[in-house]
């Protein structure tokens, strides 16, 4: 639920870095910026993507000749309102977006939102990643992904629809799980229910409203007594929770749905700016404070420069395209 401030302010961020005597200022230029960068985040303050953004914002000014990065939260609507805002902005580098690309790509591919990501945006750099895990409550007989499939089929034969929760249609967990269900021929035996954010999604499972769910893998250790992860929806194990097997290891058909955390801007950003900014992000990810903060917050750091990010995102989009088309068709039926 949107509490007191639905939109929370983001203000001047770089304040404390120098106060801690972090490091000697590196040789840096401002990438032609004369005003602070507004980095839009499509989620509320305090969430995973927001934390990534704020940690980046606290480390990057040093590599931009002191130009601060301001975080502005525009939560809701599977990041689409935030994307529309950035798309409409001038491509002068002042308005950028920290976007969780899994949900970002999917929500634009699933529905005609007036956004074609690769035409409207230009990635600057990837600096993080989150993976999704399929979870059930502890204390049931479901231990593996195959168990979950069998459970859904058994319930269906008994005339029951199994319900599952996700943080919004078009979110990475919604499409990831839908693809998993579709590939195993059990999509019609289930009903999805969107909840508010990762916490609401998880609580629907904890309280027994739904029977399974998809959750950010890194959030699971705190709930290990209550929840059981049957598998991670990616080709490789998650670096933070490496004891959960992937669905690939379990030989279950699925579509990998990692969500890279990317700094992007509107199409039309100059090549010089993108190269310069991308380098600043790389330097920031190598910064001691950045490493320490992401480590404490259990956030995986993966850096890709502008060209690598673009290629990687395109490969993800290509991999998702067939499933997204199917999900799209199933929603339109």
């Amino acid at each position, binding site marked *: 639920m949107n509490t007191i401030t639905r939109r929370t302010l983001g*203000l*001047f961020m*770089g*304040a404390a870095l*120098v*106060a801690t005597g972090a490091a000697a200022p590196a040789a840096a230029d401002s990438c032609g910026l*004369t*005003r*602070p960068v507004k980095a839009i985040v499509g989620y509320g303050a305090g969430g995973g993507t927001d934390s990534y953004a704020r940690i980046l914002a606290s480390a990057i000014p040093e590599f931009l000749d002191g130009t*601060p990065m301001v975080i502005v939260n525009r939560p809701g609507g599977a990041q689409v309102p935030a994307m529309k805002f950035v798309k409409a902005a001038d491509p002068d580098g002042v308005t950028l977006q920290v976007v969780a690309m899994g949900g970002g790509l999917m929500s634009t591919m699933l*529905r005609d939102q007036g956004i074609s990501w690769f035409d409207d945006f230009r990635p600057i750099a990837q600096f993080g990643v989150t993976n999704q895990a399929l979870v059930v409550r502890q204390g049931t007989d479901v231990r593996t992904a195959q168990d979950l499939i069998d459970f859904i089929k058994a319930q269906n034969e008994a005339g029951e629809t199994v319900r599952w929760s996700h943080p919004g*249609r078009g979110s990475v967990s919604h499409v990831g799980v839908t693809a998993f269900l579709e590939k195993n021929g059990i999509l019609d035996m289930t009903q999805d229910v969107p909840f508010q954010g990762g916490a609401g999604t998880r609580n629907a499972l904890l309280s027994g409203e739904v029977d399974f769910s998809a959750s950010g893998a890194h959030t699971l250790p705190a709930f290990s007594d209550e929840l059981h992860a049957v598998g991670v929806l990616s080709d490789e194990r998650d670096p933070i929770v490496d004891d959960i097997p992937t669905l690939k290891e379990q030989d279950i058909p699925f579509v990998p749905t990692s969500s890279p955390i990317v700094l992007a801007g509107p199409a039309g950003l100059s090549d010089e700016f993108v190269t310069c900014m991308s380098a600043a992000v790389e330097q920031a990810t190598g910064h001691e404070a950045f490493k320490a903060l992401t480590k404490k917050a259990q956030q995986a750091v993966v850096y890709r420069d502008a060209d690598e990010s673009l290629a990687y995102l395109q490969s993800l989009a290509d991999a998702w395209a067939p499933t997204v088309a199917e999900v799209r068709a*199933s*929603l*339109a*039926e």
Partner: protein
Amino acid sequence: MTAGDHSEGQGTDALRQCAVGVVILAVCAVMATQLGKIYVEPADSGLGARGLPSFAIGAGFLLAIVQIVSNLPAALRWARSGAVSAEWRGAGRVAALVVLAFAYIEAILLFQYALPTAVAMSLMLYLFGSRGIVRLVVFPIVAVAVYYFVFFVLLGLFEEPGSILRYDSYSFALQIRHMLGLQ
């Protein structure tokens, strides 16, 4: 209290209730035109995305009609009696303030924050009955300085550049922050 007072109170009240009905009716009518444009997901049960909007608009129409129908006779009677004009005393000053508010916003877009705020403060003070150089000139300047310090220096807001008058207050604020040891 005399009987006359009583009926007058009821008359105002009836007119007010009617006005509430008209306001609600207008808002509902405007929103109803948008109802058909709401995207409905076929997988959703019932009315889906149009459910609550339809219900709220329906309830609004119903409430509005109840209010108008039940109060219209009394309101008309009272309106004909010509006592309405008393309600409009002071409307001119309110309208002046509304105009001032919108002009102030427009002026910020043209001249950035400082100048319009000082002028608006001075006009507001005049409107509320202050007179004299100290109140109308010195006080606004001091007030703008305080706003600048709190919001633009301490909280680090930055201004959109004005389309007629442009200046960079951000770097200046940054220097003050440095001086204060904030950064």
